[in-house]
Each structure stands twice: as structure tokens, then as C-alpha cells.
């Protein structure tokens, strides 16, 4: 599904070049659940963003579902991730002005899906995540765990093939975190490909595969 070959990403400060990613090779098959680990500043989030096509890289090849991402233009790249990738963030990034229902509905609106269909899809996922009773609340009225649940529901609403999660439990207490991880495990069991960035060994253990990153380089296990 994902093939990264010799990916480099750097920033220039003065006449000094700092590498964020250095010669990264990675392949992910459909149905895998991968955890990226490493200390602060090791390039975990950068790698996730490159995979999610939110961020560009400077050198290397990236093939996603047989598309050569490094050859695509900005616009084609964004239509690719819109179609296949769902994102979950540490800070949830729900839109404060929208209710739970509306937050989940928004990606469907951007995909020009009809109202009746949207209703059905949102009702479905609310039901599945057992948050029907919260659908008219605004994000600020929810606990952190509930907000992240909504964030995940929103990421899944458009049926992506890949779920990218950047420290999804970073802002949660351990009990809430555990629930989220259990949900991820369940999603993975149902066939969803997941890549998460995490600090916690325990969370990483839910995955099928761990990648250790240090100074932008993958460490051999």
C-alpha cells in the first residue's frame, strides 16, 4: 500500500542543513497497524505528515496505492489524501463552532454527498461509537476522551483506507487513552490500515509493528 524509498527532508538554517528525515525506507501493507516511536524531535510527526501528504519531502520516492506521489502535483496529491486517508490529532482539532453531528458531517459536505445520504452515514457512525446522545453538543461541552472519539468518527466517516493518528492519546488520561487504543485495535481487526505516532510503549504494543526513529533515521530493530 505504501512504499517509501530514500526519503529525505531537510531545512536550511544559514549555511547549515538540518535533516528532519534521512534516507527513510518504509513499506506498509494493507491491514497493518504500525506505531512510530522515538524521542522528541526525532521526526515522528514529520514522517506521519509526509505519509499523509500534508507535508512535502525533498528527495526520494513515495508510492501510495500504485500512485507515484513524488510525481504528483499539489492538487492531485490533496485529492488523493482526501479520498483515502483519515487524520486524528493529539489536540483533536474539532471545529468549536460546529456541533458533534456537524463536525462529523463536514467531510461529507466537502465531498458533495447528498443530504439524505449524509444523514444516514453520520447516524450510522454515531450509533457505532455510541455518541448519539451527544450529537447536538459543542466540542467544549465534551471531555477530552469524548472529543477524541468524535475526532476519530470524523476521520472515519468518509471510509478511508488509511488512518493516521498523531499521538491520539497524548492529551488524555490513561483510562480514556486505553479506550481509544482498544477502538483502534478493533478497527484494525476489521481491516483498517493504521499508522500512529506515540510515546508510550504500552500504546505501541497494540500495533502489529513498531518503527523506531532517531534523528530522522529509522533504527534497525
Amino acid at each position, binding site marked *: 500500500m505504501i512504499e517509501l524509498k530514500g526519503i529525505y527532508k531537510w531545512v536550511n538554517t544559514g549555511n547549515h542543513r538540518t535533516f528532519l528525515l534521512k534516507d527513510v525506507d518504509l513499506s506498509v501493507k494493507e491491514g497493518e497497524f504500525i506505531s512510530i516511536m522515538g524521542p522528541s524531535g526525532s521526526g515522528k510527526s514529520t514522517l506521519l*505528515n509526509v505519509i499523509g501528504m500534508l*507535508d512535502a519531502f525533498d528527495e526520494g520516492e513515495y508510492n501510495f496505492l500504485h500512485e507515484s506521489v513524488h510525481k504528483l502535483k499539489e492538487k492531485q496529491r490533496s485529492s488523493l489524501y*482526501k479520498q483515502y486517508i483519515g487524520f486524528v490529532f493529539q489536540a483533536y*482539532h*474539532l471545529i468549536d463552532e460546529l456541533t458533534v453531528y*456537524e463536525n462529523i458531517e463536514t*467531510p461529507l459536505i*466537502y465531498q458533495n454527498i447528498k443530504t439524505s445520504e449524509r444523514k444516514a452515514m453520520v447516524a450510522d457512525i454515531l450509533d457505532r461509537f455510541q455518541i448519539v446522545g451527544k450529537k447536538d453538543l459543542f466540542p467544549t461541552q465534551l471531555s477530552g476522551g469524548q472529543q477524541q472519539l468524535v475526532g476519530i468518527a*470524523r476521520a472515519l466517516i468518509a471510509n478511508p483506507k488509511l488512518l493516521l493518528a498523531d499521538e491520539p492519546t497524548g492529551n488524555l488520561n490513561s483510562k480514556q487513552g486505553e479506550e481509544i487504543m482498544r477502538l483502534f485495535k478493533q478497527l484494525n481487526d476489521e481491516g483498517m490500515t493504521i499508522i500512529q505516532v506515540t510515546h508510550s510503549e504500552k500504546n505501541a504494543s497494540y500495533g502489529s509493528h513498531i518503527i523506531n526513529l532517531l534523528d530522522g533515521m529509522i533504527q534497525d530493530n
Partner: protein
Amino acid sequence: MFKNYFKTAWRNLWKNKMYSGINIFGLAVGLSACLLIGIYIIHELSYDKFNKNAARVVRVTMEYEMAGTVNKIATTGTKVGPQFKRTFPSIEEYVRTFIIHNVIKQGDKVFDEPRILYADEAFFKIFSFHFIEGNPATALDARNKMVITRSMAKKYFGDEDALGKTLTTAGKDFTVSAVCEDVPKNSQIKFDFVTQFLNLGNGVNEETWWTANWITYLLLHDDKNISQLQQQVNDYMKSTPVRKEAGVEGNNYLSYHLEPLTRVHLYSSLPGFEPNGNIKNIYIFSLIALLILIIACANYTNLATAQSSGRTAEIGMRKVMGSSRKQVFFQFISESLVITLFAGTLSIILSIILLPYFNKIAGTQFSALVFGQPLLITTLIIFSLLISFFAGFYPALILSGTKAISVLKKGFAFTGGKNVLRKSLIVAQFSISAILIIFTIIILQQMNFMKTKDLGYNKDHIVVLPIGGKMLNNFQNLKDAFTQVPGVEAVTASYETPEYVQWGDAITVRDEKGKHDISLHAMPVDLDFVKTMQMKLIAGRDFQKSDFGMMDTSNNYQNYRQPYLINETLAKKIGWTPEQAIGQTIEKAATGPVVGVVKDFNFSSLHDPIGPLLIFLNRDFSRDFMLRINGSDVQPTLNRLEMVWKQRVTDRPFNYHFLDDAYNKLYQAEQRSSALFSVAAVIAIILACLGLFGLAAFTTVQRTKEIGIRKVLGAGAGSITFLVSKNFLQLVVLAMIISVPVAWLISSKWLQDFAYRINISWWVFLAAGVAAILIAFLTVSFHSIRAAIANPVKSLRTE
């Protein structure tokens, strides 16, 4: 999709109440200014267009040269109408018109009526006034017929049918032949009564090119013929027989201009029955409305871009969720649309509340019903859409360009950049405000200068009583009676009151250059004129009773000698010193000696320098008594005068006005501009400060952390206040520097129209600048001081 846009927009507005409030209020004030000025402009542009034949009607104005002076007047002789119709086949009808102020009687009801129109039979064929009763075609076909308006029918006959009833004026009985609707406010001819032109008396029966007192309108068969007819008229008036008949010799000429009816009000320099509007004012008014709107829009743009820093995460997230740039763009345009729609609605309410004040300033009489005009509503909607697009365009464009990745990066702020646009907008706002403020101060100074200027006579406490009917026959008795009223200090009479003398005339002088004419203004007056007006004589004396002895009318005026007073300027123009002038002879139709020279006084508008003036003794021309009364006893004196009047003048009501009021009326146009500019300047500075207030709030929030750190490092409240205010004040100071030369240029251009004017003093600019900077500082310091005294621990904890 759109439902979603508006829902988000609404919730965002609600969340940021202060900024939404500033935006909506600011735009509403800007739109109200546009609305009110808009109804005024629509009204002015609609002048006379209600006439079905408007395109085919022209007003004839007269231009002639005599004694080296070119005169242009809106009135013509009696001959123009009928002679042109006989000569030029393209003319269908003509009408000569004149409006008289007279008393109208019906039974025991007597009213002073200022708008009695005398017009030829074709009047109602040429102009379209709506008839309620009677037939427009026959309404004026006999000498004794009179058409009255609906309000007059109500005033004189109450609920009874007015048709066929009798009204009396100028000693004649008239039968009401028709009742028409009240004349619309946008008609250049406004009347309450209409009767035949020929009823004006013997003077108008004879057709003559001269004695030009009447306004003539022509109805053409086709509006395409106007320029062709103008050419024909020019040729005709140049032909020898016509010149001979009109008595035009040598280099002198007499010609006529055809002004399309719909252009008279805004484009003609010659006022007709009422003062004209001016297309220049339309432009100035539009410009002011536009400037205020720009200031309001700039507030919106500035606040929207400032707010954007808090919304990059939202936009980034929307993009991650699959939104395209276009979709984000329209989301922000929708927000701006919601704001303008609120502002538009609020502006209608505001305008209705402000309408009475606007009427007062602009001298109009609009009712709230004008806001129902479809044209106005459509314009408002189009304007709102345009504003929401233009004010929202830039923020929407910038915000929609936010990259999806920015959701992951903290501290991205598009406020952090150079903000050239925002800074330019602030500078523009304050420049406009400062220009308006400076210009307003200069107008007000000039107004005050004109009000208090020494005119060369004392205009205060002069009561003017119009003379009419049989009063002239009883002149001396009336004058004696007024003189004896306690509180009256002196009494005189004249043809025109001295604040605005229009009588044009000429005298002949002989000097080394030979015989030539001097054109001048002239005014016939009664005895005691100089004394009553408190003018100064610099040589000779005022008229005295014995002067009447010179005016010997026996033997067909064989020995008639006319005594004269002249003003300094005339003496100088002839080449006499004041002392030399006494006893010299003035050569005119009525020749006579100069008995005195008066110190120059302003007998015309202060726009013009004082010209030569000839004052001659002749009470038979008198149209007004002028009474100087004791200033400490005004009302009781007026009451006593009214009693005397009622005893002696039984056929006319007691009407009076004060000379200084008439003087002030001369400058009504300037008074209105000054009021308009004052209001505009105040609105501009309030809106500009409102925007500054909002922006300062934002910057302070944004710099909370910086301020916290600085305080921890030991910065005092004063230095923090200065830190926050500094950036804004720099911009305001820059605006002042830009506005000074512009304001100076505009003001001196405006002052150029006055022969008597103030000097522009530097302190006006300094005062306006200091005031603007101070106001801006106070606005900003509300936030900066609050930030400066806040607890730094709190602000640092927000991270």
C-alpha cells in the same frame, strides 16, 4: 452547502460579539450615510422628470450685452413666447410664467399666499400636473378661471366642493375651474394657485423683447429639434430687422438659450422660481458617502484579517477534511455577507431614526416612506453585496490560502507579517478623517467670519415689513405711525433690502477718455436710510425732506432733478475723491446732484467684492419698510407694531422678518455644507477609532505572552502602554502628515469663492492633528493599559 456556510458564519459572529458588533455598527453607519445621501441624490436627479413631455420642454434664458457688461438672466420679455411660436414651426406651444406673493380672500377668510402662478393657457398642456377635478384642457381658457391645489381647496373651502366657487385677489374675482394635486417637491415650478398670464395687468398685454420679468417655456414637437431650434434662434436674433426692433446697436447683442427642462435644476447657473440645485453638490455628497463607506469597509477588512490568526487551525482542519480552497473562500465571503445583511437592515432603521436630522441639515422634507422606493431598496441590496464582496475578498483570499499543514503548527499568524494592507487602510482612514476635520473647521471659521463681519451697516434689530396693495398711497401716514411706536428708533423704506441688491443699472460719465457708461447696482430708498441702517457717511449728508423739492414732476418732468448718494467705490471709479463728489452731477435718465458719499458696505453676497452703487431718493419704488427697533424690547415692540398695523392696514396680514435672518439665508448653501461636513467628520473619526479599538484589542491579546515576559523581566506599566500604542500612533501621525497638504489645497480652493475670507492659520492643522492623535491614543490605551497592569503569571500560563 450554503446552509452550512451561513450556519458557521452565524456562530462565528455570535462567538466574537465585540468584533461583530464593531463591524455591523460601522457598516450600518456607513450604509445609513449612503442611504440618506442616496435619497437626496435620487430626489435631485428626479427633478421635473415627472412631466410626460419633459424631454420636449425647454426653458428660454436671455443673454445680452449693454454698456460693455454681459448679463445672463433666466427671465425674458413677453414677446419671446408668442413670436418664437409664430416664427419656428418646430415649436408646439409656449407658456410665460410669473409667481406673485399676494393676499387671497374668500368670504371673510384672508390669507397671504406666496405662490400664485400666472401662466399662459398652454401651461397644463406643457406640464403634467395631476387633476382631481376639472379638465386640464379648458382649465385656463378664460381670464377669470383659476386652478387651485388640493391643500388650497381644503384651506379655503374645507370639505365643500371648490369647483365653481369664487376667490378674490388683486381686486379681481376668480372662479375655481379645477383642482389639482399638490405640486410635487421635485418640480421647479411650485404653485398653489394658477390663473391666466394676461391677468398680470396692462404691462403684459403688449409684446416686448425687454422688461424681462417672465420665465418662458417652450414645448417642441420633437426633442431631437432642440439644437436645430437653438441655431435658428441664434440666426433670427442676429438678423437686422429683429435687432432694430429690439433696439440693439453696435457691439451690443441680445440672444436666447434653450435649456432642456430636466437640466435646469442641476446644470443651469440661472435660478428660476427657486434656487437651483447643483450637480457639484451631488458629486460632493456622493464622495462623502463613499469615503464614509470606505472607512467602514476598511474596519471590516482589518478586523477580519486580524481575527484570522485565531482561525488558521480551523481552516487547516477543514482542508485536512477535504475542503477545497474555493469552498473555504466562499465560507468567508458568506460571513461577510451575513455581516453586511445585518448592517443593511440596521442601516434602514438608523436612517429612519436619523431622517429628521438629515432633513434639517440638507433642507429637505423627506418622509420615511421614501425608504420604500424599489430603486433605493435594490440599490441598497446591490451595495451590500458589493461591500460584502470587496470587504470580504481580501481576508477570504488570504485565509483560504492557509495550508492544511498549518493545523499542526502553532504560532502561525498572518498578522505577524508586515501587514502593509492593514497599515495602509488605517492611514487612509485617518487621513480621510483628518481632511474632513480640517476642512470642517475652516468652513465653520468662514461661516463665523461672515456672520460677524462688519458689513458697513448694522443688520441687527431691523424689522422688515413688506409693502403691498394700497399701502404706498398711505406711505407718510404709515411711516409716521410706525415712528411713534415706542421701541422704534428709526424708519425707512426701500425697493430691496440692503443685504442683497440686484437692481442693475448704468450711468454715463465724461472724462478725458470721452463719454462712456459705468454699469452699477442701484437702490431707490426713502429718507432716513443711512440713519436707520447706521451706515457711515464719509462726505456730504443723508437725504433730507427738502430734497423732494428738487424732484419736480410738473411740466412733464421738465425741471426734475434726482438727488443721489454714491458709495466710495463708485466715487473712485468715476475718479472723484469723496469731498470732490459732493455737488457733482450724475448723468442718467434722471439727472441730479450727489449729496453724499457713503462708506462702502456689502450689498451683495460676500462671494463678490463690493461694486459701485448708486442710491437714489424715491419712495414710490418702496417694497419694504425697515424699522430699527430697540434690541432690549423686541417682542413688546413687535406686539405694538402689530396693533398699529391692524388699525391701519386692514387688507393685509401682519407679516415681518428680521434683516439678519434674510442675511443669514444668503449663506444657506454654505450653512448646509458646513453642517454636512461636521457630521461627516464626526462619523469618520468615530468609525476610524472604532476600527482602531478593535485592532488594538487583537494585538494586545496576541502579544499577551510577550507582554507577560517583558513584565517578568521588569518592564513598567508606562513602557508597556507605550509599546502597544506606539505602532498605531505612528500610523496616525503618518496620516496627519498626508492629510495636511490635501486639506490645505481643498480649503484654499473653497475659500477662493469668497471675496471676503479668512486666512488659513497653521494652528488649525496643528489642533486637528493633535486632536486626532489624542483620540487615537485614548482609543488604543484602553487596551494597552489593561494589558500593562495585568498579572504576568496569568498571561504566561495560557501557553
